[in-house]
């Protein structure tokens, strides 16, 4: 038998089949899932929202290119993760946010929390939340150079909605009478960050991610459930606590981030409950805002520990009680012919 020199054979270890799932496909689906809430925020905030989103997307792309080039790594913009982070950062800010604040948050999120940690997969903290929280500490610095920056702020009209306090702040201050109705908050209500403008839109996005199997129910349900239980325990209206602020955005899109959440159902539920408890402590006792962001980021640090804590037994590694049934023949009475 002659060896055919014409053949161009690929040699690779098994398996030789792959599912169609890719990281870039999943990122594309996350962007699709975020579209409804993005569109609602654009409906309310018009150019303010569009401008903020574009600034964050551009900052995300530029930051990733910059860090990859400096570290002499291939640029991986096509995996889509930078775009997801950019969009999520934009959704964490209110429409009146100065563009440099949002850009700086994106830069820190992608540059520091992701690329300096080794790139996608190696980051311990959710990049978007890391960026969002970092600027709370850093932005006051801008006041020393305000004059220079203020001139760089384009005027795109006044924001004609959301001139009042956000529902979350009102709730914190006990101003329940002035709050919009639950139904309105659920459907769409301006106030707060871009990503907080419609619970319905967020749930639609979450449903899409569930349908596409990019996330599963454990983390969102355990966070939301914990928030509801805690609210009831403290005599608050659980629906308000779920629907206002960043709970849904965080529970559906941030806490479920693949890289920074546990891998087993048990671990995910523990992770979700801890986030829910921390979040409610923040709301009820501490600061009025960013409780969700801080709780998720705080729990991100515990993910390796949770994975180890919830390590499941291997196939066949049964507890003693179950081992007894294994040793008993299943069909004891049938006689051989």
């Amino acid at each position, binding site marked *: *038998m002659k060896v055919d020199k014409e053949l161009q*054979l690929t040699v*690779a270890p*098994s398996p030789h089949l792959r599912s169609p799932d*890719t990281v870039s496909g999943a990122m594309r689906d996350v962007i699709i899932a975020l579209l409804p809430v993005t569109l609602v925020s654009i409906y309310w905030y018009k150019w303010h929202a569009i401008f903020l989103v574009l600034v964050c997307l551009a900052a995300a792309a530029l930051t990733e290119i910059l860090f990859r080039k400096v570290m002499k790594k291939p640029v991986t913009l096509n995996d889509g993760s930078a775009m997801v982070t950019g969009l999520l950062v934009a959704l964490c800010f209110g429409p009146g946010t100065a563009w440099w604040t949002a850009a700086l948050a994106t830069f820190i999120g992608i540059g520091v929390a992701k690329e300096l940690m080794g790139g996608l997969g190696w980051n311990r903290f959710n990049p978007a939340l890391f960026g969002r929280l970092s600027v709370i500490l850093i932005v006051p610095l801008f006041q020393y150079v305000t004059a220079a920056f203020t001139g760089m702020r384009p005027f795109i009209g006044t924001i004609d909605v959301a001139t009042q306090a956000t529902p979350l702040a009102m709730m914190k201050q006990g101003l329940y009478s002035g709050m919009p109705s639950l139904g309105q908050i659920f459907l769409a209500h301006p106030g707060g960050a871009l990503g907080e403008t419609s619970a319905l839109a967020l749930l639609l996005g979450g449903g899409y991610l569930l349908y596409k199997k990019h996330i599963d129910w454990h983390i969102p349900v355990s966070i939301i459930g914990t928030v509801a239980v805690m609210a009831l325990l403290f005599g608050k209206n659980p629906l308000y606590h779920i629907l206002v602020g960043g709970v849904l955005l965080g529970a559906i899109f941030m806490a479920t981030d693949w890289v920074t959440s546990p891998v087993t159902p048990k671990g995910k539920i523990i992770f979700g409950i801890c986030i829910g408890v921390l979040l409610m402590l923040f709301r009820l006792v501490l600061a009025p805002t960013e409780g969700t962001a801080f709780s998720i980021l705080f729990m991100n640090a515990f993910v390796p520990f949770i994975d180890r804590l919830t390590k499941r037994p291997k*196939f066949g590694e049964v507890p003693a009680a179950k081992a007894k049934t294994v040793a008993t023949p*299943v069909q004891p009475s049938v*006689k051989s012919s």
Partner: protein
Amino acid sequence: MTVKTFERGVFLPHYKEFSEGQPISTISLPEEVVIPLHQHTGAPCSALVKAGDEVQAGQKIGESPAFVSACVHASVDGTVVAVEPRPYFTGTTVESVVIKVNPEQKEPRWPERDIASLSPEEIKAAIKEAGIVGMGGAAFPTHVKLSPPRSIDAVIINACECEPFLTCDHRLLVERADALVEGAKLIKRVVGAPKVYFGIERNKPDGIEAVKSIISGEKDMEVVSLEVKYPQGSEKQLIKAVMDREVPPGKLPFDVGVVVQNVSTAIAIYEACRYQKPLIERVLTVTGDGIARPSNLLVRLGTPIGFVIEQCGGFKDAAQVGKIIMGGPMTGWAQTRLDIPVVKGTSGILVFTHSMVVKSEYKACVRCGKCVDHCPMFLYPNYIGMYAETGRYNLAAEWGAMDCFECGVCVYVCPSNRPIVQFVRETKRQIAAARRK
């Protein structure tokens, strides 16, 4: 009927349509066959012949005194032209007996005998003498597997054929169910089991019917219809599905009182006992999107895969051929040459065009957990991969690398295309090396 299965695993595209309707056919003999002396798990055989010797089909040409070994036989009438190392499908070379095939082949005659009176020991001796190994791919010597150190209460005939593309066991179910049932009875007698189950994935309804019609009325035999899920045909997953017993880590099926045998193996056992026919040929599937005529063929062992491919009309278009795989697409071995011989464990030859070849490079783990969700052994392929990649093999072992049977599910589902099976193999090598020190 209830459909049973195991936990986790993955639903793969079947790709069985290429060849499942093709009846088993025989092909002509090549000019030369190459019989590797080590095509099984265990000790290699020593050659019993030398260059220049005349051999007959069925003549024993290699043997080892070790218990865990399987003798090999000439698959044709011919002249030994060499006993030398030859390329083997795993990429190494193996000492092999090369036989030039005589143009005139004597009609092989296998003396028929009554199997009803054979004792377990006689059956086992016949199996050993025939050189039978597990023909599903593992190639573990069958007489060893049929010598369990404890009582057995069930035999499971593995007719899952869970690997996509492969259809040879399906065809055997349809065409040779009688021989299969006879073989199953012999296995049952050897191990003294009260019950035989035929585990068949339900995408083979004609196979299920064929076996059912033969065993109807026999209370100690039962067909179990199984979900079409990969790796249903892995022993531990099959035992879980059929009998709801879990083989503990590091243990074997007999530890839970079960013996599993593949369809082809059971038929070979029947032929070895009934006709004293050694294992010199097997049924395999030649398929894929790059082969002209997908087929199920009865092939003499030692036939070069290139010759088998030619007998199926060759490639559709040689320029488009991107990969040739021996075995199934999930656990098979990619080949670089066409003179590799068909051996006892060869269940298929797959010809993929370039469009089927996985080309993308792998990326960092994004910890999506899909591998954890799907791993049929409940391991943590994500951590195994991350730790092995960075050389921390002890940690990779701690997260389950040593219990992995390399089914490839984790790699299949991985969105980052990570070669976790390779990481597992490297971990096993490193841990074994560390233990030897």
